[in-house]
């Protein structure tokens, strides 16, 4: 299949627009560029950054959403990371949390390992998979105006999990590195929710 859906959207501008009014949204970022993107917008106690556990971002989001039903949870990940966790979309579809959104920053490439083309530029549509898994809403956006509208939409209530794809330009902006100390980030996150370090 030919390359399709190439986008000129800058990923950092897209993530900044998406999170501009995040309020008390809790965010889990998938390893690689989404973790750098999330940090580039500004470090936050309600962020949990992954540096590994590929395929796990949306599912960490699920466990968190189930434990915190009163808060919105966003799993911010990349196409490669989500492709490794395709089965998890079925698990999330069955679990049907009303407070979990997955946003895939989709550059159609494995950006961390030399920009090899991924499945999403070759016809695989993550939103169609999410629909088939029973997600409440899905969509694909390509412009900054559409991202701004998406930010407003995901701030509102949902009947179930939602998955949105933001198509972005395949490039590696300068890295913006959060702490790689997962115990520190974990305890900071829990303290943010009012749980004392034990």
């Amino acid at each position: 299949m030919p390359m399709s859906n190439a986008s000129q959207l800058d990923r950092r501008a897209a993530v900044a627009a998406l999170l501009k009014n995040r309020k008390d949204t809790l965010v889990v970022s998938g390893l690689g560029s989404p973790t750098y993107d999330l940090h580039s917008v500004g470090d936050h106690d309600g962020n949990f950054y992954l540096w590994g556990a590929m395929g796990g971002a949306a599912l960490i989001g699920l466990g968190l959403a189930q434990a915190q039903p009163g808060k919105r949870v966003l799993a911010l990940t990349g196409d490669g990371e989500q492709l490794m966790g395709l089965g998890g979309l079925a698990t999330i579809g069955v679990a049907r949390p009303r407070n979990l959104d997955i946003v895939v920053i989709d550059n159609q490439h494995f950006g961390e390992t030399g920009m090899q083309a991924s499945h999403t530029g070759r016809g695989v549509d993550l939103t169609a998979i999410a629909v088939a898994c029973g997600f409440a809403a899905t969509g694909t956006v390509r412009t900054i105006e559409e991202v701004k509208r998406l930010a407003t939409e995901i701030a509102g209530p949902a009947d179930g999990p939602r998955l949105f794809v933001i198509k972005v330009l395949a490039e590696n902006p300068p890295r913006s590195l959060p702490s790689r100390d997962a115990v520190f980030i974990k305890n900071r996150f829990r303290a943010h929710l009012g749980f004392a370090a034990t």
Partner: protein
Amino acid sequence: MHSSKPNSETRAGDDWPSELYRMLKAADVRQMSYVPDAGHSQLIRMFSADRDVTTNVLTTEEEGIAIAAGAWLGGQRSVLLMQSSGVGNCINMLSLSAIGRFPLLMLVTMRGEWAEFNPWQVPMSRATQPSLEAIGLKVMRAETAEDLVETVEAAAALAYESDQQIAVLIGQRLIGKKKW
């Protein structure tokens, strides 16, 4: 008498699934995820009927490792049920539990080690404990119902109170021969 149920459900005075359920509830477990195993069937039914516990059926076992970490980030304790063949699916995802020092309690029913009829269960059975230990988990094992309840109680305390990552292996001898 012939029965399609595992021995664990028919053996009189040996109701370890109910005891495990009561003990895990007393430990304030609020989320349970699983890939089904016949040996876990009663425990799965009990948790699934409990409106105070969120249960997730998984497509592959490593999903449960990630869900457990998310549950803990959100302030809830969880337990993950699988059979030994599923341990191999979990290894890279266990990096998350290990490096983040996330409390983790996995209950693993063993296949491929005692009166096993399916030879394909044997290689992963042999690799279960070494691979869990290689990624940094503490492995505990039980061969009798009494020992199992006591072992899981100790494992739960180690996991939730001491931030440890624990797999309890439930011997196939305890589960009984699969009837089919």
